């Protein structure tokens, strides 16, 4: 079913509905806060943005680039207005032990795959490197996509991303902030970058996973 397109400030519905992302309420009247496709159910409303920047959400995995540091924390650029903090406490575990000089483990210019541990009431973002899956990124390359298209790159229950990884043999990590890290042989990385570009362009089409699979087969 074709979803209705709404614009920022557009009135959607009146009532006590549960609200997802992309909407705000004023005196029981619900409005859209972004440009996107409307998802309106009996007691739930949200707008899926079709473009826009990344808004941090707790438990999201993101690809960040360390742009500053001091004695006890690193500050990483995750594509949002303010940098996200990784404190030493969120890096070292009791088991592996602490390091006095934190620049020995990560420095300015390093890239990381980390989880958003907490967003403070004042909207400061804290990342954690202690979660399973988080790591410092070595080699490979980073490409950028619209954060709104990230769900399509991952696919339903990760179907798209696991297919890409399986078919190309590359390591791929997708950050919810729209940064994708790819690692593998040069020509395979080119292929993955092309695939992701294609997904971003054709995100709205039916049978996308199948089309992409055919595209990979053709490349071989």
């Amino acid at each position, binding site marked *: 079913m074709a979803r209705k397109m709404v614009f920022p400030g557009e009135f959607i519905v009146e009532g006590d509905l549960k609200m997802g992302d992309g909407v705000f309420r004023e005196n029981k009247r619900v409005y859209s806060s972004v440009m996107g496709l409307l998802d309106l159910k009996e007691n739930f409303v949200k707008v899926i943005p079709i473009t826009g920047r990344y808004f941090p959400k707790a438990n999201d995995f993101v690809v960040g*680039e*360390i*742009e*500053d540091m001091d004695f006890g924390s690193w500050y990483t*650029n995750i594509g949002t207005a303010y940098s996200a903090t990784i404190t030493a406490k969120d890096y070292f575990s009791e088991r592996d032990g602490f390091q006095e000089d934190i620049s020995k483990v990560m420095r*300015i*210019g*390093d*890239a990381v795959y980390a989880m958003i541990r907490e967003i403070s009431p004042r909207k400061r973002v804290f990342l954690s490197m202690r979660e399973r899956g988080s790591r410092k*990124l070595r*080699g*490979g*390359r*980073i490409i950028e996509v619209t954060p709104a298209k990230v769900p399509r790159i991952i696919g339903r229950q990760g179907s798209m991303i696991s297919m890409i990884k399986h078919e190309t043999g590359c390591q791929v990590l997708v950050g919810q902030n729209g940064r994708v*890290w790819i690692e593998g042989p*040069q020509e395979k990385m080119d292929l993955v970058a092309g695939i992701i570009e294609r997904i971003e362009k054709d995100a709205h089409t039916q049978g996308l996973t199948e089309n992409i699979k055919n595209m990979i087969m053709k490349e071989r």
Partner: protein
Amino acid sequence: MEHVVAEIRRDHIANIIRDGKRVDGRGFDDYRPITIETDIGHKADGSALVKMGDTQVMAGIKLLLGQPFSDMPNSGVLTTNAELRPGASPTFEAGPPKPPTVEIARVVDRGIRESGAIDVDKLCITEGELCWIVFVDMHVLDYSGNLFDAGMLSSMAALLDTRLPKVEDGKIIYGEKTNNKLPIANKPVETTFAKIGSGVVLDPNLDEERVMDARLTVATDKSGDMCAMQKGGEGTFTPDEIFETVERGAKKAKELQKLLKD
């Protein structure tokens, strides 16, 4: 604030250039698509908007009557200014001009001035007393690398588009233009090269500009002679690289000059 680039990105761009390719698939001597639109501002005496890939620079020309400098009583005055709009990039901020802003204005100014693009002597009306003052104002609307070339191109396109305003009793009548053009004697353009690792590439885009070791801007006039130069960045060029870059720049300059209509 300066933008910190992850080493992964830096290595990737350098590696791909070492293999003789570029991140956006261009050749080493290719510009991104360029469009020039003139006469876009009705209040300005001349104006132009240049798009070079995702980079956008608008230039406006304003003419005022004033006194010549005392050491050049027979010449008009040229003043070039650049403005990096905060909306053009997250790294641009409002406030007094910072070194990069001043550099763009000065490098473009040097290109126009040293090539003799404007015959300033013809701008003098009464020796030592009255002359035209030409203001070239560049506004960067979108920053995606290589502001020098786009800035120069927009300035020249706007100068070529300029019509002198009407003057009565020694005063300018605003809003009324004559058909008289500025005395344009030359058509300089600038070509900027970035050195990334071992390769030197033309027209660096934003990603390339952020990781480049050094850059070299060469201004070439219509006869193919070099008339100005500017080197930036912490890295170095070898003498051979400089000679080669100047030659490559002169070749590309012809293409850019074709885009500038008289």
